[in-house]
């Protein structure tokens, strides 16, 4: 295929200086898609893994051999096609997820970034994240990714206990994880995130908190705490079903979560989302886009996107899914330039429901201004101000509705899914009862 190297290195080189800059103020200002702005975040899915993890039900494949050149070419083509379709003029962030995208060659990453910069503008200070698994010899590869244009790493560390790592089916050890973390911090200072899982079968609160404490001694400015969700079809799910492993105790997990977030708060981290913690302003702007219902394009097998196909004359945001299976996806991209399997227009109410459900995951929640961008005729007060059920949640101290907007309290954030079961029907009701908008009368 083409030779992306030179040009990609060009983009990467241009961004060298910008890399060290903090991308701090993601929560404010930088993302204000006031009139449907031709900008978006971009997600790239690398579908391959070395080994299947026991808890993972993501769209991933463990292949005998990857035809990387073909894959690279298809990712590039699809990125170009979708950017064209969306009419997006500026890409604010790129996220390489998977699968295990750190198994892809840095060339591929560079090629995609170059294509994005060509098709739309990819500013030098854009956040470009790569999900990376810890390995025993991380140094040179991580440096190569840096040279390819990656400026932020998200490390799937998961645990600092070798037994737990084994249970999770991870290929790395705790010492691999710490070594990779140290190397990453050296290469991407202030822009490294680590994942830590909680609520594993038989896991106890005390030892887990000590792991978190230990991790605080090594980590950078971003941590994600994920409670294990037992997903149907995973090895872990089967083992728990068969009784060979104890089912995780939700009470214990709740305790870990509460204690963990308290510990991180003391350590100066801001819990800016249900599972995400940052200090020194090191929030992930890419993920912030999801929770603020900004536009995003999904490139690669099974990737999801949400954008207005303005380039094709569309005016309605669509939820889009690419073909799941890599070989089929590649065939489609080769034939049609993209592998979009499904695109469903999102209704106004549907979009508002997403604004609500996603926005409340963040600490700032939904500001009045933010809500206004999606619902000009219906304020947060109109929707939630007079509901008795919502009032009960406010009184209970789980939810706040004030001059700033609607958001969860510290306690409320932990039970958001229960809150939404009251809020979503309320929104539907208010939507149906709303005064007909002036344009539509008659």
């Amino acid at each position, binding site marked *: 295929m083409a030779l992306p190297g030179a040009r990609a290195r060009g983009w990467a080189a241009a961004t060298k200086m910008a890399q060290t800059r903090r991308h701090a103020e993601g929560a404010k200002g930088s993302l204000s898609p006031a009139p449907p702005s031709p900008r978006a975040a971009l*997600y790239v899915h690398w579908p391959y893994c070395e080994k299947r993890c026991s808890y993972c039900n993501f769209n991933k494949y463990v292949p005998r051999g990857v035809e990387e050149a073909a894959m690279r070419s298809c990712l590039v083509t699809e990125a170009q096609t979708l950017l064209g379709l969306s009419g997006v003029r500026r890409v604010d962030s790129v996220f390489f997820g998977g699968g295990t995208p750190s198994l892809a060659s840095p060339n591929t990453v560079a090629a995609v970034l170059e294509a994005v910069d060509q098709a739309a503008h990819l500013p030098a200070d854009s956040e470009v994240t790569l999900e990376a698994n810890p390995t025993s010899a991380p140094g040179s590869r991580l440096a190569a990714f840096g040279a390819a244009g990656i400026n932020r790493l998200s490390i799937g560390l998961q645990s600092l206990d070798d037994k737990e790592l084994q249970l999770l089916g991870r290929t790395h050890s705790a010492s691999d994880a710490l070594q990779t973390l140290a190397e990453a911090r050296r290469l991407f200072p202030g822009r490294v995130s680590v994942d830590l899982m909680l609520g594993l079968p038989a896991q106890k609160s005390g030892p887990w908190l000590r792991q978190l404490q230990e991790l605080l001694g090594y980590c950078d400015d971003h941590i994600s*705490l*994920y*409670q*294990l*969700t037992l997903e149907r079809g995973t090895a872990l799910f089967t083992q728990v079903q068969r009784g060979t492993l104890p089912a995780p105790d*939700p*009470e214990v*997990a*709740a*305790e870990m*979560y*509460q204690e963990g977030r308290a510990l991180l708060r003391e350590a100066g981290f801001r819990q800016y989302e*249900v*599972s995400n913690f940052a200090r020194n302003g090191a929030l992930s702007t890419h*993920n912030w886009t*999801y*929770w603020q219902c900004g536009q*995003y394009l*999904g490139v690669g097998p*099974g*990737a*999801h*996107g*949400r954008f207005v196909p303005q380039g094709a004359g569309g005016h309605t945001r669509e*939820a889009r*899914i690419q073909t799941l299976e890599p070989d089929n996806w590649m065939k489609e991209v080769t034939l049609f330039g993209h592998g979009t399997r499904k695109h469903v227009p999102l209704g106004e109410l*549907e979009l508002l*429901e*997403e604004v609500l*459900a*996603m926005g409340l*995951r963040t600490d700032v929640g939904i500001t009045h201004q933010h809500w206004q961008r999606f619902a000009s005729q219906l304020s947060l007060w109109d929707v939630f101000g007079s509901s008795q059920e919502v009032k*009960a*949640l406010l009184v*209970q101290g*789980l939810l706040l509705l004030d001059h700033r907007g609607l958001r969860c309290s510290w306690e409320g*954030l*932990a*039970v*958001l*899914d*229960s*809150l*939404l*079961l009251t809020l*979503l*029907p309320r929104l539907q009701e208010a939507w149906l009862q709303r005064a007909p908008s002036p344009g539509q009368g008659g």
Partner: protein
Amino acid sequence: MSRFSVENIRNFSIIAHVDHGKSTLADRLLELTGTIDKTKNNKQVLDKLQVERERGITVKAQTASLFYNWEGKQYLLNLIDTPGHVDFSYEVSRSLSACQGVLLVVDANEGIQAQTVANFFLAFEAQLSVIPVINKIDLKNADPESVEKQIEKVFDIPGDECIKISAKLGTNVERVLQAVIERIPPPKVHRINPLRALVFDSTFDQYRGVIANVALFDGVVSKGDKIVSAHTKKIHEVNEVGVLNPNEQPAHKLYAGQVGYLIAGMKDVTEAQIGDTLYLHKQPVEPLPGFKSAKPMVFAGMYPIDQSEYNNLKSAIEKLTINDSSVTVHRDSSLALGAGWRLGFLGLLHMEVFNQRLEQEYNASVILTTPTVPYKAVLSSAKLIKDYREKEITIINPAQFPEKSKVTEYLEPVVLGTIITPDEYTGKVMMLCQARRAVQKNMIFIDQNRVMLKYIFPLNEIVVDFYDSLKSLSSGYASFDYEDAGYQTAELVKMDILLNGNIVEELVTIVHKESASRGGTERGRQRIRSRLQALSCQPRAQCGAETCELQDHDLSQSWKLNRLRHPGAPRDKAHSVGKAICERLKDSLPRQLFEIAIQAAIGSKIIARETVKAYRKNVLAKCYGGDITRKMKLLKRQAEGKKKLRKVGNIEVPRDAFIKVLKTQSDK
């Protein structure tokens, strides 16, 4: 049919405990007399229902006329099969009143069982000749001599009157037929009197209407006669009469002394109720004694699992009740379970059989709520008496329970229970009975090592799990049977179930206030001890003080344990029922955003409590670009489901939670 003079007619029944071989013996008798073909696979010909064959019980009585030549004379032997279970004791008694004698079948291995006793006394009270038949003598462990002794002891029948047979192999079955002729008297009837016929069973045929099985005490009936039901006073014209062999075989006439069937354009089995007397139009006779309308003893709510199934279930229930007038049906509805019925049954087995037939024959699956018994209240409030237009009311639904201040007394149905058990379980059985508020009436050894106990039980104490408990504590050896014994005063109270202080209407329960361990006082213990000591005086080889001491020791241990578990206050029936409901609710109520207090209360007094803790964490951990669609779908589905939940105060209660609490326990 007229060729049979009354002297050559015998009417008899076979009575037996479950599985002692009644139906097999009937098959052999039918074969021997050429009524049915021997070569066919005659397996329990008289048991027509699927449940009957499966469970080895006879639910619906069947009848057959047998022709038998003996010593140069031809006899007409009418075998009137009876339902094999106490729930149907009224039907048994009606069947028996059409007979002059019974074959009492006892298993040579198992010996006399509770039901054998109950059936024997029914026959005895009806002054019938009893022919003891010891069956299954071919079995390896058969001990016919010992069973013979039991029969002597319990029924006072000389051992040499027992006929030892193997119905399975046909051994000695001929002797049974001869005994029927020799020992059972012919019916005392008068052909010249006007018609007097007893309806002892009725079935419904969708083409021919009601088929009434009748025994003629006086007169003659033939096609074209106009007959009247003594109960309904309705007039019907007879379209067909005949004998049963066991299928209907039309005949010209039926004569006094004979047993057969009659079809007379009746459209509903309630027009030919069991026990009713039929006579000729304009020739009224004194009705035969003993008629009672079926009296339900156990009530349960029945609801379709899905409300869309309501109409199908309705038609299935109608079809079943058209053949079984003893089931009472009232429409009912529950906030939690939707529209349904409150059904009354003769007993637990009757209920189970009905439910099984719904499932097997009509493919209907239902929610059956925990059975309750018909309590009564004697009203003192003039206003209520006026409202109900009677002083004594029957409370079928707990929601209608009148307050104590408006009532002189409450009454509960009681039964006389018979238990036969190997004596090593006697102590445990007595403990169980006492825990069930039973009062002992009688206790005897029926042989070397088997005891027969008689107790008066409050019906509600045996209605759910007594039989299972008895079977499990006696390793399956104890047998149990009961008969109606009227009503007794009872201290009843209404128990409310509250969720955070709000009453859950569908869970209102009537409970007995009396402490269950009142029998567990020192006095009660003394009583058991002296009973056991008295037993040791019985002439049995292996009995010694040792056994009794051991049993007594066991008992005192258990009492001590009971005391330890409930120090101070005696354990209270209401308390344990309340606790059980609270626990079941706790297991089935989903967590909510606040703590839920589940309480059982009598008046303002809380007697049991469980707590469902508030959710501490309920939020999806990972929610990024690829997760949104799935997450929104799930949330909306949950929100949609939430709308359908029944709200008690601000607590959402899923239908499943009600089902788990209300459903019969045995389905666990």
